[in-house]
């Protein structure tokens, strides 16, 4: 239990900054390199490193598998939902100008932020799902099944 003390302390220190960096990449994606996909991967790294160092069970206490599934789907819904909103406002699907018809550039801005947030949530969800799937190693079928 007391093994790898340095690893564990450093990990705890790192996770916070990893997540903040993920949020930075997420919301500055339109000004600097980055965006939803990169931010999603970095955010997932925060959870994955926690799982690697503190065991899978601990990670799944923080982020249970069912929640990860819903998150992956919610991100897609946020993306598509942004498009649907612009559709209901009488513009083409995903035409962000619909959000602020008086000032289309602002609308484009809000739109891309929302859509990228959706991408970020989904990518986090999918990355963590893949990690869980590889690590949990529950035999998919027992020997008798063959």
């Amino acid at each position: 239990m007391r093994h790898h003390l340095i690893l564990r302390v450093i990990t705890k220190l790192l996770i916070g900054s990893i997540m903040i960096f993920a949020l930075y990449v997420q919301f500055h994606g339109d000004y600097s390199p980055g965006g939803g996909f990169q931010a999603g991967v970095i955010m997932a790294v925060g959870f994955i490193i926690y799982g690697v160092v503190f065991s899978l069970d601990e990670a799944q206490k923080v982020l249970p598998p069912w929640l990860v599934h819903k998150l992956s789907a919610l991100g897609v819904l946020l993306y598509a939902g942004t498009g649907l909103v612009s559709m209901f406002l009488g513009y083409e699907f995903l035409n962000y100008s619909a959000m602020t018809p008086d000032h289309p550039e602002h609308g484009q801005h809000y739109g891309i932020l929302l859509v990228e947030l959706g991408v970020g949530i989904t990518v986090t969800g999918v990355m963590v799902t893949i990690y869980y799937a590889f690590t949990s190693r529950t035999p998919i079928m027992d020997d008798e099944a063959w």
Partner: protein
Amino acid sequence: MSTETVPHTAMTLVDHLPAIQVLLPFVMAPLVVVVGSRRLAWPLTFLASAAAFVVSILLLMQVIDGSIISYHMGGWAPPLGIEYRVDAANAFVLLLVTAMSTLVLLFARRSVEDEVSAKHHALFYTAFLLCLSGLLGVAITGDAFNIFVFLEISSLATYVLIAQGSERDKRALTASYDYLMMGTIGATFFVIGIGFLYMATGTLNLADIAGRIEDLGDNRTVRAGFAFIVVGIGLKVAMFPLHSWLPNAYTYAPSMVTAFLAATATKVAVYVLLRFVFSVFDPDFLFGTNTLAFIILPLAVVAMFSASFVAIFQSDLKRMLAYSSIAQIGYILLGIAFLSETGVTAAIVHLFNHGITKAALFMAVGAYVFSAKGTFYDTLQGMGRQMPLTSAAVVVGGLSLIGVPGTAGFISKWVLVEAALEKGWWPVALLIVLSSLLAVIYVWRVLEVLYMQPASESSTVREAPMSMVIPIWIGALACIYFGLDTDVTLTAARTAAQGLLAGSTGLH
């Protein structure tokens, strides 16, 4: 900051139909995951599919006279933005895909309960919805790279769906893996082809590519692009030497998945092939014409014979039908290779008629799996008496497969023979008839098993539930209806063929 008012007329629901077509299943897919209920998964899926069916009818009605609808995604005008473009050819494909998905879903409720473990139901239907939206997206989009993206959405969902057959038979996993490998190679070739076209033309919009190729004329980059695209899509179509993934995938997938894929997936790929060969590349593009005449035509004939021949010697009904699908795709490719209006009409009509025939037959196979717990001929002996309704539908579907007058299959073969005679290719017409004789043999073997052989004494097999029999019979009756009333199918197919053969001008 200045406030400027940009004039804009609000779009109506009708203007949005092309987007709604794809969005219905696409938005429903994550919604099913979020709801996460086993009970609600099927109703929500069915709702999305049925609504998409209505949308596709509305779209077809708008374009049947030869007009074109163009929808600009995100308000960005093509060729820079992504464009959804509906004309008679793809509206017809959209109708086929949504009609088949709705029909198969009706059948699916009991079949999936039986074949897929309950804990996977919600995700199973999610994968189905993603597959459906991918197929619809491939058909509706007017952007080359968008086709690739949607093709991957539908393919990845398909691999998952096929693997779900592992509840019944573990070989579904290897079948799915094989298809994953082949499908990925196909998609890679396709995207390399698009890369070449992009290099030659600097655009991804299909209409724009077509226009620029016309100006550029023939060059090596365009030829390489054409070759890569034909091989890549050929894999998805299951064109003869590239068909090896199909028999296993169809045999081991859950019944409803097989019925859906057989009726739609290869058909959508055929549509993409048509679109590229005729609209993007000019029909006068000599390299393309030669490819059709000297490569696709012989391969189509070989497929018609070799796959039918293999089908005769199968001992599993589902596997036999899978091989027969490869043969039938041969007929469709033959129609394309004729490079005439009648030929392409035959291809499109057969795409539709074979779709409904195979959907009916594979659903019937699903009913046998549900009631008799198997599809091998020795399990099915005497089922004509024990499952009379299902077996009668198999008879109708089988007749349509052969092309007996009065069934849908006859119409498409008739137009196909007509196209061959129009060109004066007597031997090809003869080959079409001869290969139909092989179909007589493999269908007869099934009928013999079902009706001529006694069931085992201890057999207590009952007819499948009505929720399965009714969709099967809707399919079977459609086979007869479209064999008698050819107005709708032939008109739509002819309009589509004219639009496609008008070449790049058909896209402007």
